[in-house]
């Protein structure tokens, strides 16, 4: 079973992390889902693949009424992010899904119809969850061509999708990065292979440096807090990415 953990709380404004299922088969990449609650309203980021729908749904239901979720946010189109869409829509056909405009005719292969999707333009968009504003921040080509992160200025949280992701070894259960130098070794292989553009990396690093971020919350791995956020941004800015290109 996945577990829900509060990672931020201020009154009725809460960020929950849904993570760490010890029963997950190891052929499925581990994912973190985040539930942003404001009052009676909630938004679920990167709700997960169809194979983990039951685990995610029941973890959420243990703490928060899933009927409060009015929208999903898909950072991009990958199956581990959004292939559960049809199952979420079975539960609540009125759900909306925020998604890059690039993918609004691709993701319906997982589920949904034209009016399910709120197409995010390349420059991003503000959205409301309850009384609070969230901002879809462009992060294109990191790794998907149409890719967004989600910034909650009040909470000081950036949901960063695959940026910051780490493939943690079995037994590493910590939700937060405690030892940056040790942790980043689990992130390096992912970033050098998956991130394809130095230009996109530098663009993101410049953008992220200008945001107020106390917690960088990736879709895989552990959360970077405090000084580790800037440490990560600086590390990423120096990283040589795009190692999948085979040079003759």
């Amino acid at each position, binding site marked *: 079973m996945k577990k829900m953990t509060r990672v931020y709380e201020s009154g009725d404004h809460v960020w929950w992390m849904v993570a760490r299922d010890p029963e997950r088969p190891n052929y499925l990449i581990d994912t973190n889902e985040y539930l942003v609650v404001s009052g009676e309203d909630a938004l679920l980021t990167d709700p997960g693949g169809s194979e983990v729908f*039951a*685990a995610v*749904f029941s973890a959420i239901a*243990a703490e928060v*009424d899933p009927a409060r979720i009015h929208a999903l946010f898909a950072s991009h189109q990958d199956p581990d992010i959004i292939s559960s869409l049809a199952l979420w829509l079975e*539960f609540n056909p009125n759900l909306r899904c925020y998604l890059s405009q690039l993918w609004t005719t691709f993701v319906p292969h997982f589920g949904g119809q034209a009016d399910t999707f709120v197409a995010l333009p390349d420059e991003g968009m503000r959205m409301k969850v309850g009384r609070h504003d969230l901002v879809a921040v462009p992060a294109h080509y990191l790794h998907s061509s149409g890719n967004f992160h989600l910034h909650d200025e009040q909470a000081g949280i950036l949901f960063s999708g695959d940026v910051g992701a780490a493939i943690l070894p079995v037994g590493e259960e910590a939700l937060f990065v405690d030892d940056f130098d040790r942790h980043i070794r689990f992130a390096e292989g992912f970033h050098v292979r998956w991130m394809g553009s130095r230009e996109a990396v530098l663009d993101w690093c410049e953008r992220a440096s200008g945001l107020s971020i106390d917690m960088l919350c990736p879709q895989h791995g552990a959360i970077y807090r405090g000084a580790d956020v800037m440490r990560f941004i600086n590390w990423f800015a120096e990283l040589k990415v795009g190692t999948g290109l085979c040079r003759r």
Partner: protein
Amino acid sequence: MIASRSPGRAVVVKKRRGASALSACTRGCEDEITATARDLARVTELNEKIKAVVSISHGLQLDAINARLVARRAGHRVRGYAVVSTELRSFSRHLGYQMGELMGNVGTLVGGIADVLRIVRQRRHLQAAGRSKLPPGLVDALHRNEVALRQGFEANTFGWRRADQELRHSLKLCETGRVLARGAKIEAVYGGERSDELIQTSQAIEATIELIRDRLVAGRTLVKG
């Protein structure tokens, strides 16, 4: 079906066998399949009610402790009240434990129904794939899907029954609690100068038990669908 020595006829026989097998698959699960999305909404609503009761029953445990303390402060005049408040404390602990069990079981049921929803969706795709032509591999896939569905439905039926049993047990406990709360109100009258305080505490406990009981009755209504 009569086995045939002619290869052409054998293909027709095999196709008919596959088609009737598919019909059996389709017939077997349709009502349950249709109900699955509704069941997920239903069990989620039940889960919310149970969570509310768990929260209220924690408050009840505090009320019961308070009743004990009030009885102790009131002294020997309210020995009867003290006895009842001790029983109330025991009842509230028992109820708290029961509600914890129920919450765990309903939580498992939520996950079970969510998983069946996934298998139902796979089934719809497989059925759509077989509309014009039914290759043997597809019939096999539908059979496997049906086995998985049946296992899921059986587990969930058991889960619903268990939830109903536990709700019934909790309601019986609430009846005990009601009797105790009324007993406390009666004993409170003999509390002298502490009487008002004792009555107030007993009324609070009685109101809480009624609240719990109402939620549990609503829960049973949901379980019965």
